[in-house]
């Protein structure tokens, strides 16, 4: 969570500067928005699986009711047939239900792991793992915008000391500002590396089209993001040289 920076006044009283207060309020609002959005996406996912389960169960019920309507003779015939069409019709429904339950369960596991992360205050965590969790939540959103998300992770274990929500928020905010400028069909590549005792998350628009401004940010949002990442002990680097523009979030490795 956000940690207010303080200034010492001559009288010895510690007081928050107005700017810091405003930024901290901004962080809290952003935290609430990100949480709300993530939960809404996960809830939507679960709702969709439930809807499919509901339809599949309903479809099987419809088939059985239809069989009842055909009369007793048909029911006898139904049981006499070694290969009856009703059996063939019912199995796909059961398969769908099982599949959907499995997928809904994967979403609730994701939700549970996401929620538990939020309980944690600043702690030493595997940055790649936390990043994966954020992206799983974001995957649906990028998919709906027609943006293809790619993640290339370093195989090294990168432990960083972070507040999980703050880290997730920094990634969210960075992605949000980038996605604003990307068109449907674009590819966004996230690459993690470990270099000089630091963990780097590099965001590159891997779209083949001309997109020199896709990773540029509004000055306000850049300033806010810088503050947000700084609050986590990290920093943001924007590169707009000759090669494709990119943003990198940089965090110091724990004990590094």
């Amino acid at each position, binding site marked *: 969570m956000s940690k207010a920076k303080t200034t010492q006044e001559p009288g010895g009283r510690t007081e928050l500067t107005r700017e810091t207060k405003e930024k901290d309020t901004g962080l809290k609002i952003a935290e609430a928005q990100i949480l709300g959005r993530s939960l809404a996406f996960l809830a939507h996912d679960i709702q969709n699986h439930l809807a499919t389960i*509901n*339809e599949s169960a309903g*479809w099987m019920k419809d088939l059985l009711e239809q069989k009842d309507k055909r009369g007793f003779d048909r029911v006898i015939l139904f049981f006499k047939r070694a290969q009856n069409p009703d059996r063939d019709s019912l199995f796909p429904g059961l398969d*769908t239900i099982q599949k959907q339950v499995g997928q809904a369960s994967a979403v609730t596991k994701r939700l549970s792991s996401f929620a538990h992360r939020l309980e944690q205050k600043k702690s030493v965590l595997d940055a790649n793992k936390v990043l994966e969790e954020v992206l799983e939540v974001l995957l649906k959103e990028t998919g709906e915008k027609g943006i293809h998300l790619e993640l290339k992770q370093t195989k090294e274990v990168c432990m960083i000391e972070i507040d999980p929500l703050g880290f997730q928020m920094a990634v969210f905010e960075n992605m949000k500002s980038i996605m604003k400028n990307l068109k449907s069909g674009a590819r966004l590549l996230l690459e993690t590396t470990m270099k000089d005792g630091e963990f780097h998350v590099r965001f590159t628009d891997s779209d083949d089209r001309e997109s020199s401004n896709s990773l540029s940010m509004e000055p306000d949002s850049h300033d806010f993001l810088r503050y947000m990442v700084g609050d986590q002990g990290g920093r943001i680097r924007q590169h707009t040289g000759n090669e494709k523009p990119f943003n990198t979030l940089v965090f110091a490795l724990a004990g590094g």
Partner: protein
Amino acid sequence: MKVLLVDDEIEFVNTLSNRLGMRGIQTDVVHDGEQALEYVKKQEPDVIVLDLKMPGLYGMEVLRRLSKTNPSIQVVILTGHGTDRDEQEAQRLKAFDYLSKPADIETLADRIKGAYKFKMEKVMAAVAFAEEGEFDTAREIAKEGDKLKTTGEMFKNEK
């Protein structure tokens, strides 16, 4: 009655189509907003059952475009992601109804039939006014349907 189902959840929408078929409502299925608009260009359905959150073009944007280009198509929103704001917006864009997933199949079938009945009433009313020579009123009804919207509301409660 020509009904189009628009939803990116393929298993869901195919099963829904089968179940509606068993209730005498034949449907065509497409899986995103662009496909829906393409379909409408080729053959105008009477009723569209529309999901909101889909890849590419959002359902609300499809509704917005249809309300301008094909106002006579009746749209029933069927979503798992509905917010109060979405519902208000759908109402403002004159969607016939707004249902949340998972919806009861009989309720959905009733709403589709109600939407179709509403559309037919509107067409018949427009024709009747046109026959009387009241072309402005006929045009108004065909375009907006506001005067008959209350009739549509009545269908919604008919169960």
